[in-house]
């Protein structure tokens, strides 16, 4: 099959792969969908971001996001503690959803980036690279950390009148990790993976 042709994922128009400058996005000329991106040096940048992201992930999950002082009492909440509070109230589905979208999905994004791009940095492909890259897109789709951050903001406003709210160290790491994951998503050059596999 002609490798210079591509079918648009949104409208199925068969077209010649548009030429794009480095850092640019190729767009479908019928519906405007993004087709692919050219990311020079993307492999190393993605890898570096994921490594830093893993450190931030640890901080974001081990340290409290928020603390509330009500009189003498100081209650701190980590992400895991928030999930457990839901679980303890019998809201198992909700606990699973919050854990899945704010802990598991971002962790799997980071781990699968490392799994794919660390060997790629040394010019190698890890075993089962294709299914991992495919799942990576699904993990990204279910990562909702930025929405959780908005939730933190709303909670602060909601409780501000009744109690003293103190931000924890976790929330800073959480905030940084959101930007880092977004940067990793733009730097990620999955085309470099597919080009290396070739057709069996």
């Amino acid at each position, binding site marked *: *099959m*002609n490798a210079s*042709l*591509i*079918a*648009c*994922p*949104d*409208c*199925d*128009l*068969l077209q*010649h792969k548009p030429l794009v400058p480095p850092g640019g996005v190729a767009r479908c000329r*019928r*519906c*405007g*969908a993004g*087709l692919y991106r050219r990311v020079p040096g993307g492999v190393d940048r993605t890898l570096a971001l994921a490594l830093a992201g893993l450190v931030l992930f640890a901080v974001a999950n081990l340290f409290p*996001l*928020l603390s509330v002082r*009500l*009189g003498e*009492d100081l*209650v701190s*909440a980590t992400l895991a*503690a*928030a*999930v*457990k*509070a*839901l679980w303890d*109230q019998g*809201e198992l589905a*909700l606990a699973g*959803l*919050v854990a899945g*979208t*704010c802990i598991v999905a971002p962790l799997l994004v980071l781990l699968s980036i490392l799994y794919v791009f660390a060997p790629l940095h040394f010019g190698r492909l890890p075993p089962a690279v*294709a299914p991992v*890259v*495919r799942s990576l897109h699904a993990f990204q*789709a279910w990562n909702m950390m930025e*929405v*959780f951050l*908005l*939730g*933190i*903001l*709303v*909670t602060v*406003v*909601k*409780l501000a009148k*009744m109690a003293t709210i103190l931000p924890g160290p976790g929330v800073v790491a959480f905030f940084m990790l959101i930007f880092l994951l977004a940067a990793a998503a733009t730097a990620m050059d*999955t085309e470099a993976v*597919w080009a290396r*596999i*070739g*057709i*069996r």
Partner: protein
Amino acid sequence: MTGTHSALRLGLAGCHSCQLLLRVPARVRSSTLRCPRCGAVVHPRKPRSLSRTWALLLAAYVFYVPAMVLPITRITTLGRLQEDTIMSGVVYFFQSGEWPIGLVIFVASVFVPVLKLLILSLLAVSVQWRSQWRPRDRTRLYRITEMVGHWSMVDVYVVTLLVALVKAGALASIEVGPAAFYFASVVVLTILAANAFDPRLIWDALEEAA
């Protein structure tokens, strides 16, 4: 041969995962097409796209009612029970002068889910009727629903944080209301509905007419 035709018309299909172009065998229904490069199962069109989209949308419409009517939190302060729905939370923020936050909650929890349900319904109807109306704009609408949907989760996360922070306090206790589950279900169902819808069907109607 390129220019105005869909790949499927020319007997081709793009792999949704790695974008490799494949030749579609004549009897594609009976055989599963696998991408020789990345191993993904390739469907020239998402299978049973419309019926799956409708089923998920209907479920989301049904769940939206209890999500709005039932309480999302039950707060007990000094023995007094106060039940809040999503709407009463919005009204509270507006009345207490925190209207930017009230607006954020209203847009994320009320406006976006309704908008997403209506847009996806409109798209499904338009495909069913083989409409030729503004295909580019309809495809764009589809991409918007894919982008904004998950922001509706914000209320679920607020409840999660409230439960964790106000637990076991002497002054107040807080319980998750049944609306939280229904609301989270609406968000997940609309995400799945958007995934089930195949925007390429919008363009198929145009090519059939041409």
